[in-house]
């Protein structure tokens, strides 16, 4: 009941939920492999549609890599709260004495660890496939920050659509406009880096977005969960 025990209980929730979600990801490898595969395939479709000239592809590469990473993140978001909602675990979170904030934060961190991070690690390979001329380090760094921000912002959308039967595409609709700034700065950082220009500013701005999202998104998502869990 004291502040101290309660704060211990909070970190307990965070750790236990993070551990649980990572365990779930380990048991269902599809959950984190699928976004990767989507990223891979969607990018390989581009040369099939646009044509194989590497000069054209090099111009496209930063934009296409970022757009597809964005779409892959977006599509993986639908599962963030969905399965917990369907099997009733989410309503147990709502009635439990733990702060929902930490549960949500833990779920988002787990989500990023199993989608954003592997996506980032895969991106240089796909950059090669699209003949990206340079800036591989910036590509990774920008995706690292960007995917984390996208997981956070996306959690709000996932929470808002959790009780809707086919929320997946609605989620895209809600969240995509919010991703525009991230996409713009991320893609242009890679573009600049590929042309050898200084990229401090866009990366710093991406970092600022991340800080903002970290402060606000879990709160908004918790509020959204409380509102939406009872209704369909």
């Amino acid at each position, binding site marked *: 009941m004291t502040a101290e025990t309660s704060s211990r209980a909070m970190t307990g929730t965070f750790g236990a939920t993070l551990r649980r979600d990572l365990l779930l990801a380990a048991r269902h490898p599809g959950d984190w492999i699928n976004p990767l595969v989507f990223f891979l395939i969607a990018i390989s479709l581009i040369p099939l549609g646009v044509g194989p000239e590497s000069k054209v592809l090099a111009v496209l590469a930063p934009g296409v890599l970022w757009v597809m990473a964005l779409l892959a993140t977006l599509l993986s978001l639908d599962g963030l709260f969905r399965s917990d909602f369907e099997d009733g675990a989410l309503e147990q979170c709502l009635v439990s004495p733990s702060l929902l904030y930490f549960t949500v934060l833990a779920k988002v961190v787990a989500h990023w660890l199993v989608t954003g991070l592997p996506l980032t690690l895969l991106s240089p390979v796909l950059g090669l496939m699209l003949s990206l001329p340079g800036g591989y380090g910036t590509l990774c760094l920008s995706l690292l920050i960007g995917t984390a921000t996208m997981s956070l912002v996306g959690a709000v959308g996932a929470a808002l659509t959790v009780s809707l039967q086919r929320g997946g595409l609605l989620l895209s*609709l809600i969240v995509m406009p919010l991703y525009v700034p991230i996409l713009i700065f991320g893609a242009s950082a890679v573009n600049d880096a590929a042309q050898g220009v200084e990229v401090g500013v866009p990366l710093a701005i991406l970092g600022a977005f991340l800080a903002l999202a970290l402060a606000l998104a879990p709160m908004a998502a918790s509020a959204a969960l409380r509102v939406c869990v009872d209704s369909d």
Partner: protein
Amino acid sequence: MASWQWFHRLGSPRWFYEKTGGWLPWLTAVALVLLVLGTVWGLAFSPEDFKQGNSYRIIYIHVPAAFLALAGYYIMAVCGAVGLIWRMKLAFMVMKSAAPIGAGLTFVSLVTGAIWGKPTWGTWWAWDARITSMLILFFLYLGIMALQSAFQNREAADKASAILALVGTVNIPIIYKSVDWWYTLHQPATLKLTSAPTIHASMLYPLLTMVVAFYVFYAVVLLLYTRHEILRRESRTGWVRELIAKEGGL
């Protein structure tokens, strides 16, 4: 508690319905007069633009619509916040009504812009910074409407879309700034808009009239939508039944 009386009453859909019933005719009249005045002035009496000829006259719709599209989002978001904080049902009703109107105005400004673009730029569409931001604003509106309609449960629909609208307000300035930045970064030299200062006073006054006319017009439409929403939501309550009985079925 007494000082909150007015606020309580403001929150009552019935009070709102009965009060606005009186305002509506006046507002409608003002909107019509201003619209007619602005249109006639703008189309018939203001001079031809020396570069664009008569095609520029579409700004008399385009610019007011664009202004209101943005303002409408904030009106909607403020209503959402009021609804969430004070649990005021009326605010949610206004918010729900504001979404389609705002989306419609955004759409009008996009379409008139496109129609204007054809003679001026020789293309229907270009990824100009303002146009792009407008398009994203349109998506934000669509998202809110889609979320609103996806819920079966009205209360959840209201609160969920209010949360989304608030998240959107945090984002809109960021989106505008980043699209600006993006555009200046890439700006192709081929396109140049006629910039604001070149607008001559004789063009500006009818434009201002139209802007005011659009604001009043917006208020009228918003009231109509909200009143309709009130009737639908309160259709089970006594006063609406009485009203319907009195008016002999709507």
